[in-house]
């Protein structure tokens, strides 16, 4: 306890006492079924409550039928939601943790795809993402929306919530009114700051009336929209003062950015420093006496403690940190912060999946969002399991199997574990990926895996051990593209990262993967003064960086580093240049034009081949043999971890 002076001290939010300062703040999960809260919601929040969170704030509950921006939105305006609310609040309260519901109407940040109704907004300003012109609301419609908040607040009280939070921040009709970019009204709801806040104050009044004095009411404000002419921190501070002056609100929550134009600043990837948005909370906290929640990529208990100690905020939102490890708070409290399976801020399976309408997951934690899926009971404990390969798949398989009572030996050929994840984390901009290896290694240690590195094994050795189970996690090896021939200056990304090649001069990075491999190595080589061009057959370089919200920052860094990009190209041949370089034929598949360019080096970010030699030898062995991760077929880290976990859980 002593190492955290503030983090585990209770705090009062109006009528509600929150046992510690760690908030599992609101975020989309895509767990709604037919517009209603599900069992998966209950289990998901309950796991974080059980893990010691001080306060849970649910994802948004929609307040009106005109609001339906994504398929799996919770329709809070329907009375049927109450049964699901009760299930959620009972599950969380069982752990003595308070839970608030977030209420929202997304306003113009939506389309009519699901609602089949005109989108409502303060003014007919189309959203930058959805690009559908909304209907400017008349006074009757504004009153209807305000009444919707009142209705849903009443549903939440009936459903057992301890409070409600109004999302007026990154995707909200209230933000739409507050922001001069989207509010062009000339009536009493537009113009002056007071007028633009009118709907917020009306909603506050209506909601307080609905929830009475025994429930907490919070308002989450956007401190900086990060868009031209948008809301800035001084505007947000002014609104915070107005909110406080109502006397009806118990706390303020904060955020930065607009979900439909600057999302990469809301759910920032590892490209941003931890706590990057705390200045918002800090500025608001200076202006008001209400408790303020700060957030922004705080993934470590020490970071959270420091934000409190420095007076930047009164509570700390830790969302991804608790997705990755539901026991984030409990481990910290018990002095075991080193055991926390830390969030990588990779955004791959949380932000990336949710953006595609899928249930929220996590690379680190394959149970995230799957809390309701019951793991099979081990058929027999104490089986002798040999895991070959210490990449993420092997580490996860070993840790899970040992954790479930098996006798597990992990054999890794290299001197250190981590496989390609450890390698990818050697690139300066991707260092935090290495947390995955650290966490898995710690998990192996805790669960008693006999971990041996620097050990090469063959099929004969494994047979001789007469194991019950062999799990092959032997990874993948680079595969030379057909056009590379014997050209020694055509190399793989791994050759560069593992130090076997040191490309210089004019470098072409050929990207068939569309993810971090090409962009990482390009940045690395540009940092080493190479002149780099990335070429892709796709329409965009680093396309999947868009899903993880890394594309904007990559584009900015690439520009600064002089990295050129070309699209719609395939390599159709390569030859040795007389000066030792490489002549590359690049075929523009859109126009049919082929050009030859000279480079000093060519680096390939292409699919690999599985290291499946042991599988070929052992597939018919007299014991159970499984393949997990890249040795089944090379994919990304999430597949490796999930497969390792699933396979081991089924032993």
């Amino acid at each position, binding site marked *: 306890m002593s190492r955290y002076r503030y983090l585990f001290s209770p705090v009062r939010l109006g009528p509600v006492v929150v046992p510690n300062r760690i908030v599992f703040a609101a975020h989309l999960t895509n767990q709604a079924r037919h517009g209603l809260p599900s069992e998966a919601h209950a289990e998901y929040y309950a796991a974080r409550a059980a893990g010691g969170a001080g306060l849970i704030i649910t994802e948004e509950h929609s307040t009106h039928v005109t609001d339906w921006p*994504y398929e799996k939105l919770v329709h809070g305006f329907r009375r049927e939601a109450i049964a699901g609310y009760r299930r959620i609040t009972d599950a969380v309260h069982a752990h003595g943790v308070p839970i608030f519901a977030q209420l929202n109407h997304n306003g113009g940040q939506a389309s009519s795809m699901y609602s*089949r109704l*005109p989108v409502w907004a303060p003014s007919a300003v*189309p959203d930058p993402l959805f690009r*559908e012109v909304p209907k400017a609301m008349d006074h009757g419609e504004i009153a209807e929306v305000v009444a919707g908040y009142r209705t849903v607040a009443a549903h939440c009280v009936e459903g057992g919530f301890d409070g409600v939070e109004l999302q007026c921040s990154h995707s909200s009709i209230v933000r739409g009114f507050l922001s001069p970019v989207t509010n062009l009204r000339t009536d009493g709801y537009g113009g002056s700051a007071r007028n633009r806040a009118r709907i917020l104050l009306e909603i506050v009044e209506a909601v307080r009336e609905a929830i009475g004095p025994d429930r907490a009411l919070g308002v989450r404000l956007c401190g900086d929209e990060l868009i031209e002419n948008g809301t800035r921190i001084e505007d947000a501070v002014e609104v915070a003062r107005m909110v406080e002056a109502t006397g009806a609100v118990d706390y303020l929550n904060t955020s930065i950015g607009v979900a439909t134009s600057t999302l990469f600043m809301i759910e920032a990837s590892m490209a941003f420093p931890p706590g990057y948005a705390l200045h918002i909370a800090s500025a608001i906290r200076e202006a008001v006496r209400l408790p303020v929640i700060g957030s922004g990529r705080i993934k470590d208990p020490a970071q959270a403690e420091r934000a409190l100690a420095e007076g930047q905020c009164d509570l700390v939102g830790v969302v991804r940190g608790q997705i990755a490890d539901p026991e984030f708070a409990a481990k910290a409290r018990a002095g075991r912060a080193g055991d926390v399976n830390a969030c990588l801020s990779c955004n791959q399976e949380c932000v990336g999946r949710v953006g595609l309408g899928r249930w929220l997951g996590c690379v680190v934690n394959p149970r995230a969002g799957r809390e309701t899926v019951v793991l099979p009971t081990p058929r027999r404990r104490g089986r002798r399991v040999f895991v070959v390969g210490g990449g993420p798949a092997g580490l996860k398989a070993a840790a899970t199997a040992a954790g479930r009572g098996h006798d597990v030996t992990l054999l890794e050929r290299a001197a250190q574990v981590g496989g390609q994840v450890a390698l990818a984390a050697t690139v300066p901009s991707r260092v935090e990926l290495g947390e995955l290896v650290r966490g898995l290694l710690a998990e192996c240690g805790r669960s008693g895996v006999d971990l041996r590195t620097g050990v090469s094994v063959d099929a004969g050795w494994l047979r001789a051990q007469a194991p019950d189970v062999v799990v092959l996690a032997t990874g993948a090896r680079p595969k030379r593209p057909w056009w590379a021939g014997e050209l020694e200056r055509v190399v793989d990304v791994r050759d560069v990262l593992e130090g076997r090649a040191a490309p210089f001069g004019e470098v072409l990075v050929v990207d068939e993967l569309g993810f971090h491999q090409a962009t990482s190595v390009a940045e690395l080589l540009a940092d080493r003064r190479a002149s780099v061009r990335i070429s892709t057959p796709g*329409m965009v370089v680093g396309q999947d960086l868009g899903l993880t919200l890394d594309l904007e920052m990559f584009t900015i860094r690439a520009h600064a580093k002089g990295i050129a990009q070309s699209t719609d190209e395939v390599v159709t041949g390569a030859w040795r240049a007389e000066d030792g370089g490489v002549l590359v034929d690049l075929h523009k598949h859109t126009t049919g034009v082929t050009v030859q360019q000279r480079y000093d080096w060519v680096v390939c970010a292409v699919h690999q081949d599985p290291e499946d030699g042991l599988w070929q030898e052992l597939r018919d062995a007299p014991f159970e043999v499984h393949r997990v991760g890249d040795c089944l*077929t090379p*994919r990304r880290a999430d597949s490796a971890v999930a497969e390792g976990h699933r396979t081991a859980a089924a032993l």
Partner: protein
Amino acid sequence: MTALTGPVVLAGRTAPSRVLFGPHETNLGDGRALSERHVAYYERRAAGGAGLIVTEAASVHDSDWPYERAPLAASCADGWRAVVAACRPHGALVLAGLGHAGSQGSSAYGQRALWAPSRVADVVSRELPAELEEREIAALVAGFAAAAASAVACDVDGVEVDAGQYSVLRQFLSGLTNLRGDRYGEDRTALLVEVLAAVRGEVGDGRVLGLRLSCDELAPWAGITPEHAVSSFAGFADVVDYVVPVRGSAMNVSATRPDSHTEPGFNAGLCRAVREAVSGRAAVVWQGSVVDPGAARAAVEDGTADLVEMTRAQIAEPRLVSLVRAGTPERIRPCVLCNQFCRVRDSRNPRVSCLGDPGSGYEVEEPPVDLPWPGTGWDAGSGAGTRSGGGSDAGVGVGAMSDAGAGFGAGAGIGAGSVLDEVLVVGGGPAGLEAARVLALRGRSVRLVEQEDVLGGTLLVAARLAGRARLAELVSWLEREVRRLGVRVENGTRVDLADLDPAASVLLATGSVAGPRAYTSDGPVIETRDLLAGLAAGAQVDDLVPAGPVLVVDPVGDWTGAGTAELLAAAGRDTAIVTQDPVIGTQLAITGDLAAANTRLQVAGVRPHKRAALRRVLDGRAELVNVITGVESGVDCSVVVHCGHRLPSPTPTGLASAGDCVAPRTAYQAVLEGRRAALSLATSPRVLGRV
């Protein structure tokens, strides 16, 4: 003579017409099961005269979960049974679509490695699949057999096996994706032969076995070519009852069901070649943007095909066969091949629907407004009649349906003998036309006034965009229908909205006006709608667009900006296009035209300025700024063509309104809102008095 609308016998079963409603993604499912929405959706097509209905392809093995709502055969029994029960009374044969998407699936839902013949990454997802081993191949074959057995147990009339676009069976057939060294690689047809034999074993001879087969992957260097397909696949003819030759592969997913940039009926030659090779051993179905009933009829008459797949045509018009049969093909609501609402393999899970008929896919929630054809067995109770209210049994009878709607619904909810006032619809775009049509169908007198000399509003104008000419057919249909139904149409008439009596039955559908622009210019800026209207009026591009380089400003990223740039380039103009997005026309992903449009623009020499915004135009230079890096650049620009969002035309408050004058969107929302407004006016009319 063989008749399109006449019966055809397959495996001893008689389909009432030669028109097939093919398998397609709908997102109507509940989880991975077929839902009551599916049942109503298929029944509506059966009622309209479809000969065969193939249900949405179900995954035959749990290794396959290609999209979230993809049916899983093991979860489809109740659904198949219900679809059979709903469709059989109408005579249609119901076939269960069966498939496995292989490497074109998704691991996002099942979280397992994808299955494929070889480790070849999918072109679209870039995901590397796992290479199937012999025991998994056996499981795949067993999966097809088990799924077929399950479907047979539900008393379907047959099954259709998918070796078309999204299919592991095609991936085995193709040199692009099958690099195996074993017997499944030496004879790439081996798996399909095994699957068909296994499925036939379950289906027996008394039920239909159909095969959807990609016969042209449009990748001749290694893919399936028509020559190869025709020769080597003719062997399947003895095993199956029909084959649907399709084209396309993962290299060109949208080529299988392309939008209007591809000419309809593109598979006619392929179909004839397959039919010749099959020589009567199996029926051959003509697929590929077949939307014209005349062409379909000609194809079965001239021997191009034995049957015709008209899937999108029946999404747009479920009564297609009935209307042909009745000799009124002009009443068929046309499919305009826009692909904007029926192409739903999209992570957002949009439901299948139709630009011209937003009720498509919403049969359960929004009973169709169009009258089912008499004699189809679909009685009024399950159709439009339910919405028109009680007490009007006589008005929903056969006579009403066949007779321009006169009398239909006239009694709905209103005492006999009352007189309804005429409804005034202001604006003859899609919203106003649909409203007038539905009001007239409901027996109301309607006066439709349009300030222009032609009907169609922005929809007609949009038909001038490159590749979008077919949109005009929807306008023509709406116009024919409102005239047929006796709507009083007044063109060239302006109505002073301020003079309208708020108590009268009035609907405003007055469209949009130009929207704001985020830049300034000291040179000419032309709204693309004005440009297109000028073209529609017969002017040439050069009459409308001043000389010099043109910059198309496209903040929307749909068919408008890309189509505008394309038509300008086609007119020989030096054209550039600016978008804030990393690609031109991001929203074209919906229609499947994204890659093709970018290719066409590049080939046409249109210069793209991506991730850029126009700040201002001064002295013939456009000043652009990169929206991410902030880097500024300049390009020559004599004239800007603006393709931005528009604003609603001003309307007085308190009057019913629909479409763009509420908020400018696509014709889909216009038709939907016009329809809703009409239904609302029709059922809550202002009664003038008793006679």
